């Protein structure tokens, strides 16, 4: 179980135009990801998803708040002591092209971490080879075919599977998949999503899935939790299917409305929401962070900050003064 309590992080921008701008990348985020569970962070780019993922993977520091791994608060440990905890949280990032060393074969890529592990645990050379094959099979690759090959000889989907196999060499407890399928060919995406789902079931690995494409979040498991993040704040949170079928926060509704409609196959939702303007991360707002772009904002939204809760008795949590379900999702033609 990995939990986060009130995580905050502020960046100060550099460069001549943006210099000195402060970006509150995370404004007190709480989360809990049970063992074997799935959680998805969604939001537009710049809303803080990657920063949160990197903090959870121990790759980025945070300003305040606590990360608790299996009951141990990380702030109680010295950096060296934290290492074994964070080692079991592996990041899979977006670009399977740059994630792999182009000068190493798949065999070399897997051999190095496995040999280290064998050294630490007193295992033999043959264990290393066997394990490499086992992991490749687990991620749906033919070891005989891929082991001798270099990354450029593999398709994007195969490369991403190799990246996942490498992450599995350390027996991780959690995989943090940051836009892990957005660079994969459309016809192969579902394969990677299904793999993540299978790994949850077969190995009990939990998956933290970071994406701006809400639809993909369903495919790592419909038991998952969805966290909708806007400007460093969780604005809606709950069961993935609940939020997709009955979103109440106008920002979530904007995200869902933005998904292209497959005209001819689907009809658009009748109440699609289009936010005004673009995201401005460094703006200061006294009230709701979304108020400037929200088509439904009222006087109260300008001056008071909504907090995450079940206001209006919604099944999911949300941070909106006026939670209202809207018909924003496209429906297959011939279904109501």
């Amino acid at each position: 179980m990995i939990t986060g309590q009130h995580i905050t992080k502020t960046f100060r921008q550099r460069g001549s135009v943006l210099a000195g701008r402060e970006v509150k990348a995370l404004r007190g985020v709480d989360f809990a990801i049970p063992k074997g569970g799935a959680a998805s962070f969604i939001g537009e780019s710049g809303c803080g998803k990657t920063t949160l993922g990197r903090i959870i993977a121990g790759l980025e520091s945070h300003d305040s708040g606590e990360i608790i791994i299996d009951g141990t608060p990380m702030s109680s440990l010295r950096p060296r002591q934290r290492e074994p905890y964070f080692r079991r949280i592996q990041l899979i990032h977006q670009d399977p092209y740059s994630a792999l060393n182009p000068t190493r074969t798949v065999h070399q890529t897997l051999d190095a971490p496995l040999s280290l592990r064998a050294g630490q645990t007193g295992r033999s050379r043959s264990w290393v080879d066997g394990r490499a094959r086992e992991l490749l099979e687990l991620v749906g690759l033919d070891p005989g075919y891929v082991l001798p090959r270099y990354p450029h000889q593999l398709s994007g989907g195969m490369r991403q599977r190799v990246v996942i196999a490498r992450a599995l060499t350390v027996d991780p407890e959690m995989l943090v998949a940051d836009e892990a399928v957005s660079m994969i060919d459309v016809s192969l995406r579902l394969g990677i999503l299904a793999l993540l789902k299978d790994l949850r079931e077969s190995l009990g690995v939990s998956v933290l899935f970071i994406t701006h494409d809400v639809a993909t979040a369903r495919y790592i498991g419909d038991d998952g939790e969805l966290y909708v993040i806007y400007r460093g704040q969780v604005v809606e949170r709950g069961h993935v299917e609940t939020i997709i079928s009955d979103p109440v926060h106008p920002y979530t509704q904007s995200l869902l409305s933005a998904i292209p409609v497959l005209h001819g196959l689907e009809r658009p939702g009748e109440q699609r929401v289009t936010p005004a303007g673009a995201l401005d991360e460094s703006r200061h707002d006294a009230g709701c962070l979304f108020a400037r772009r929200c088509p439904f904002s009222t006087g109260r939204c300008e001056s008071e900050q909504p907090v995450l809760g079940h206001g209006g008795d919604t099944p999911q949590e949300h941070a909106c003064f006026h939670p209202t379900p809207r018909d924003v999702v496209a429906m297959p033609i011939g279904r109501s």
Partner: protein
Amino acid sequence: MFVPAEKVSMTLGERLSAAVGVRGDRSVEAARNTGAAEGTRDARRSGPPGVRIRDLSVVYRTAAGELPAVSGIDLDLPPGTITGVVGESGSGKSTLALSLLNAVQPPGRIRSGSVEIDGLGDVTRLRGENLRKARGRHIGYVFQAAQNSLNPLKTVGKQLLDLGRSHEIRDLRGLVRDAKDLLGRMGMDGARVLDSHQHELSGGMRQRVGIMFALVLNAHLVVLDEPTTALDMITQATILRIVREVHEERGLTTFIITHDLGVVAEIADRLAIMYGGRVVEQGPTTEVLGAPRHPYTQGLIRAIPRLVGDLGEARALPGRPPTLGTVPSRGCVFRERCDLRMDVCETEEPPAVPYGEWIVACHAVAARDAETREEKE
């Protein structure tokens, strides 16, 4: 100390991508290829041009000889329409787009066929200054990965002025005003963006800057290669809306290339599906999406993660898309992944057969069509 594998090579990866990002000065090329009314800014033109691509083949020289990335494509862009091309990586989309500008670079070359553009003639025959001028006068273009195609050393505004000068535009102020206006419509602070260097802009901002460059000179044929790839959904929706609006306001012929069927579904009037260097199916967008005929199109649609419906309904296509070296030289390029394949698919390439406005290249579809016609008789 133990360092997790992922964490080590990520930094390596980051260094690599950083190196690629600042490589060379592609912006100047990009700028040159962007369209313009020569010497004057007003678009006094005779309406949007139509484009007719005929039997086009483009090859790249490799260690294994010249291999086709585009093979015998026939495709029309009717004047005033948005045509979308969808295909997986390596299917030849960018190569096709470059052919429209006769801009295929060595080791590639257009081996045969023609690209007739109204007012320009066959662009595959144009050379040198004629070609440069033709591109400038008619065709606006956004390269794939426009994100990395800006000059890192110059502000966007400076690059805009360079662009204007290279097309002998006298009213540079007007040009800047138009650029600001376009950027503003795309949700950005135009003045601030023009003052920025590439590294100060997010990926989404750079992509929008690329689109501004393609539109700012008033070209009437606009070619957009993956204009929204790697952007989030909200930014993508905004950009697609603007492309559609500008398309209608200015009366353009627009050609948009993407690996994302949703993008094309959202804005294109006509849709062409590419696979292994061929157009396997083309027709009016809503009709093709509503009842796709080619097994690949069907599989591609089934592979899209959906917001509603049974999770089991969506399925990945088995196998993988072919690459230059693995595209079969005989028979159907899709057969390895096709459930319907027959003996003839191994040996004979399925011809593109028109069914009204809809064109499909598949033996099974042709056979089924012949059957239903026989039944009727």
